């Protein structure tokens, strides 16, 4: 593998992994709705 080919592969892999990370982040973006039936408790 030439230096140029290596760099191309590296850039491709980097973009792929970044994209994957973004899509996971989107999946974890919770949509919150206030729950019913709960209470605050004393610390400790």
């Amino acid at each position, binding site marked *: 593998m030439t230096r140029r080919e290596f760099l191309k592969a590296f850039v491709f892999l980097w973009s792929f992994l970044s994209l994957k990370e973004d899509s996971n982040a989107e999946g974890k973006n*919770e*949509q*919150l*709705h206030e*729950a*019913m*039936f709960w209470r*605050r*408790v004393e*610390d400790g």
Partner: protein
Amino acid sequence: MGKIVQCELCPNGCVLDVNQTSRCRTRINKDGKLYSIVYGKPCAVHVDPIEKKPFFHFLPGTKAFSIATAGCVLSCKFCQNWQISQAKPQETDTYDLPPDKVISYTKTYNCKSIAYTYTEPTAFYEYMFDTAVKAKENNIKNTMHSCGYINEKPLRKLCKYMDAADIDLKAFTEDFYDKICNGSLKPVLNSLVVLKEEKIWLEITNLVIPTLNDDMKKINEMCRWIVKNLGADVPLHFSRFFPHYKLTNLPPTPVETLTNARKTAIDAGLKFVYIGNVRTEAENTYCPSCKKILIERTGYQIIKNNISNGKCRFCNAAMPGVWS
């Protein structure tokens, strides 16, 4: 007061520090407030025959718009839907389906009812509750298939909008609930009594698992408890177990065991006892008075319905259920 909260929805009573998630995986403490993270985000949406829930005495032959989010308050080793019930919401593919859209689809697909099912509806209580309120306003019936592991206060609030419930009575021993489901039996029995008191149409499902809950003495005890506390008219479905999730080492339930369980239940006084997950004559409804077939079924399909205006067409005996 700090920012620690306690969830009071189910008997687990999860105490959660900031950013901690409940045992059911659907509720999170954000900065001292408890939130549901599955509201309007079902991972399963289907149009099913109502018989699949199973409801055999509730609008037979109609369709139910069925929804579920990820999550469950128990962790049964035999769960048949473990891929979604035991998953974190973030691990599932979800639809964007707020209550208004559920109502709209229910009408579009000509369903008479909405079924909160597949996983444990208590885990998506707020979503179920708001949808049920809107359904009632739109003359759509609400049904749920639940394990009944819910505290009395939220259950009674829900009952104002719920029309029918099928409760999994998984066994009749605390030991089974503790070791196999990571829960307890007592709250489930209390839920059954509450549903009866609130006049919700009730059916019960018991999955019979070889060696774990197939002792006829305990089945007899369970059936006598049902007759005494809920009445002889409550339909009981004995369901055949197939190896799933963490119980792949056990064989499917022999049909003979299910037949014995049905006989035990009838001897204990129950009038409507069915066998599910296997094709037998015990999927039909028989008139307790004249013994003729009232509803003939094959799987989830109705072949013949001999109930007219809630009565047996042959002997005119009144049949318990919701027929129209």
